[in-house]
């Protein structure tokens, strides 16, 4: 066992150490601290070192080495007694020699010690603040790590949304609330007169009009004054920068997490596939704590192993090939039809709502919320429909799960995109329509029929107000923000409703009606539900995509999402523990799985595009928002650079952003990517070579042994 250090190796290396001590001491020592079997030798060495070294630099190195041992001691697979002994030894040496250090070194070590103490204290405190830890551990023990991975993903998204909320809140919302023009002063902040009467209706509040529309919730409220408050806070610039920073932060944190995960698993680095080893060595989920889950896990492992053996032996199914293929083609056609259908329906509905708005002054509740309701209904129903269709295909469960995930992802993306395209169509109409400035002039030329001066003045006022209203209403950014927020709210309502109605009622029915019904409800249809990990994770990703799409136009959207995620966490964890049973067939969804993160990254990229497109293409509204009056939203940057920075800076910026600099930089990046890929390929090749080398070394060792045995036999006989 590795507990007992092999004495032969130890003594050999200690004699070698004695010989080379003066030459390569420090490098070998640092290297040897990560070698288990060298530990015995370094113990002996330390006793010798204690007598010799007087050189202050060597002393410092020695102390650093001992401190490294102390820092790394918990990574050693030794029993506690041995760790304690080594720790005491190392601490003795440090204490003994630290007194002999020079003053600067002394301060250095004291600083490092303090830092270590503080970081340990901080770590103990930070762990307290991780939310919902007990809850997740409970779910883990009942359902295994697959289901818990959904909740851990939810918690991570919650963290991201909190940071986004803090960013938008601190830099955009708060300054506007504290230092911006208060409600009712400017045109963009007052509710127009004809809407005033209905501003407090439930109807209006539900469709986010009235007071909600003219509040910090939406883009339209923010003033365009370049500097506000006594400190001269540049709100429009901050608004733009925070909008970009939201995306940048999300990208950075997502990429960082993916990089960390791939470093842990190393699976993406090589295409080695140790299916059997993994199924046996990594099969048991050590987090399971109750017998029911353990039994089902055991059964799942047996199935897993059996099916792997079967796959290996390549036994075929008995269904005839032709029927299978035709069924699969049929299933794919159905799925494609439904995807196309859902995209068309959404586009049609948005179009219709636009037309209705223009024709009828008063809309019913259904007509106002049609778009969001239809989208949410589709996202609820379609995945189950896809699952039913997938039963036609008769794939292996893992393959069908992958197909299901891909289809649901395409559905979500299609929905979001058709919605945003329809919205942007309307935005196009709104932002390019000519403001109705000519109307008062037209009215002034009306004279002959109007005898009463007051009549004409009131007519003038009415005409002027109508102009104002149409101009005020032409706030397309607020409109987009409203639609996104509405979608998010209704999606939440549908999620809550589906959990309560579908899972909970199903659980109740199975539990209490199984006595009255003629067949056992608990083991045949309808059974208790299983927690569908993949689809729920996709739904979380879809939700986050919505937030990213709307964050620029509605700064409070991340805050709303934070509340939504909290509610979702509590509701789902309650539902899973009350209404669901552990899976019968367990498929891998581990914590460090990069698959969901890759999908989130894809979603982030795609949801960033519409915002960038809208910023680059459309003229900001004339009368509302922080960028009103500019030609393009991003003009604020060039304006700031031109007016607030010294002249040479703007010259430098114009050089940097010209094609002369940008094109060579892009070319350089491409070359770098190609170079890194070439290195990766060569490393893989080296890896294979080393593996072959191992085999040949072993083979040649065996040959040598057999040869030496033969020769000894030969000499012995002679």
């Amino acid at each position: 066992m590795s507990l007992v250090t092999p004495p032969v190796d130890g003594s050999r290396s200690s004699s070698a150490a004695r010989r080379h001590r003066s030459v390569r001491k420090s490098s070998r020592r640092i290297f040897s601290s990560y070698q288990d079997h060298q530990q015995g030798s370094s113990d002996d060495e330390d006793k010798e070192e204690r007598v010799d070294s007087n050189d202050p630099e060597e002393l410092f190195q020695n102390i650093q080495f001992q401190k490294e041992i102390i820092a790394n001691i918990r990574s050693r697979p030794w029993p506690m007694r041995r760790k304690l002994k080594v720790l005491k030894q190392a601490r003795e040496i440090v204490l003994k020699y630290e007194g002999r250090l020079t003053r600067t070194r002394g301060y250095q070590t004291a600083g490092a010690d303090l830092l270590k103490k503080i970081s340990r204290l901080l770590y103990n405190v930070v762990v307290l603040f991780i939310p919902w830890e007990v809850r997740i551990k409970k779910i883990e023990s009942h359902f295994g790590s697959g289901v818990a991975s959904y909740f851990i993903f939810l918690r991570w998204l919650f963290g991201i949304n909190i940071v986004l909320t803090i960013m938008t809140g601190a830099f955009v919302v708060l300054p506007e609330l504290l230092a911006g023009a208060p409600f009712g002063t400017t045109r963009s902040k007052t509710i127009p007169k004809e809407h005033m009467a209905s501003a407090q209706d439930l109807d209006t509040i539900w469709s986010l009009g009235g007071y909600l529309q003219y509040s910090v919730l939406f883009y339209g409220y923010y003033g365009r004054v370049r500097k506000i408050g006594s400190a001269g806070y540049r709100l429009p610039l901050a608004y733009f920068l925070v909008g970009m920073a939201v995306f940048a932060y999300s990208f950075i944190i997502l990429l960082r997490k993916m990089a960390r995960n791939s470093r842990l698993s190393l699976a993406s680095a090589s295409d080695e596939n140790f299916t059997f080893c993994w199924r046996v060595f990594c099969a048991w989920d050590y987090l399971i704590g109750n017998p029911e889950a353990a039994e089902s896990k055991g059964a799942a492992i047996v199935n897993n192993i059996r099916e792997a053996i079967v796959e290996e032996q390549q036994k075929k199914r008995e269904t005839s090939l032709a029927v299978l293929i035709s069924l699969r083609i049929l299933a794919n056609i159905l799925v494609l039809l439904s995807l196309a259908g859902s995209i068309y329906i959404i586009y049609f509905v948005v179009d219709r709502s636009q037309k209705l708005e223009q024709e009828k002054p008063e809309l019913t509740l259904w007509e106002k919320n049609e778009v969001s309701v239809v989208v949410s209904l589709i996202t609820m129903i379609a995945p189950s429909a896809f699952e039913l269709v997938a039963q036609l295909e008769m794939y292996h469960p893992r393959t069908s799960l992958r197909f299901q995930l891909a289809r649901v992802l395409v559905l979500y993306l299609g929905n979001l995109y058709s919605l945003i395209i329809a919205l942007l169509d309307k935005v196009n109409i709104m932002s390019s329509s000519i403001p109705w400035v000519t109307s008062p002039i037209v009215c002034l030329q009306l004279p002959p029929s109007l005898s009463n001066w007051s009549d004409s003045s009131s007519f003038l006022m009415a005409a002027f107000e109508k102009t104002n209203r149409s101009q005020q209403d032409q706030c397309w950014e607020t409109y987009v923000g409203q639609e996104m927020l509405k979608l998010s709210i209704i999606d939440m309502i549908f999620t809550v409703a589906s959990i309560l109605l579908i899972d909970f009622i199903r659980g109740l029915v199975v539990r209490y009606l199984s006595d009255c019904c003629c067949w056992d409800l608990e083991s045949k249809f309808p059974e208790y539900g299983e927690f569908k990990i993949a689809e729920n994770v996709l739904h979380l990703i879809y939700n986050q995509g919505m937030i990213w799409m709307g964050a620029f136009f509605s700064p409070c959207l991340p805050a709303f999402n934070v509340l939504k995620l909290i509610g979702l966490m509590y509701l789902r964890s309650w539902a899973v523990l009350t209404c669901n049973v552990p899976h019968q067939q367990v498929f891998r969804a581990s914590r460090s799985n990069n698959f969901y993160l890759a999908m989130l990254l894809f979603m982030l990229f795609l949801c960033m595009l519409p915002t960038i497109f809208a910023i680059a293409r459309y003229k900001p509204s004339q009368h509302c928002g922080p960028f009103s009056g500019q030609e393009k939203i991003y003009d604020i940057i060039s304006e700031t650079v031109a007016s607030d920075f010294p002249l040479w800076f703007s010259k430098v910026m114009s050089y940097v952003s010209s094609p002369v600099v940008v094109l060579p930089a892009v070319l350089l990046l491409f070359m770098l990517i190609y170079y890194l890929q070439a290195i990766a390929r060569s490393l893989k090749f080296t890896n294979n070579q080393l593996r072959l080398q191992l085999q040949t070394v072993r083979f040649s060792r065996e040959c040598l042994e057999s040869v030496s045995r033969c020769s000894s036999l030969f000499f012995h006989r002679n």
Partner: protein
Amino acid sequence: MGTTASQLDKGMLSEYQELTFLTKQEILLAYKRFSELLPKEETNGLSYRIPMNAILELPELKTNPFNKRICMVFSTSDSHDGSLSFDDFLDLLSAFSDSATLEIKSHYAFRIFDFDDDGTLGRQDLEKLVNCLTGGTVDTSLTPEEMKQLIDNILEESDIDKDGTVNLSEFQHVISRSPDFVS
């Protein structure tokens, strides 16, 4: 130590934090759970060894198919009876905690799977391993042909130097490539 058995010395607490991957709260919680298993008359919790069958009553270990091996591996008792002192108990928790490194986990996993303690995973070890995983009953365990096929496949995948057994480095090599092991 003080009169109550539920108090851990502060010095020992900081030592344990240094030597394991557990946070302060986790160590205190572990001490509480450990002292619940102590017999009533025993006051000094740190030096007493709890016998294996008492440890196996813990709900977290009860359903684990490798529970006996885990106790044997982490036990430092001279009589090799699988009894755990508090130090061993902390070692166990530290190795299974979230913050433990891959090297520690794979090292202990190897020792747990090595049923005959010979430093390598031979055919008997692998057979016992699979039987533990699948449960002991007749209908859940594999047939001999399936077992042979499975073990052949495992050795083919992981045995790099082709000596018929899986040693620690080969095991660590396989495990480090798995995306599931760390969790």
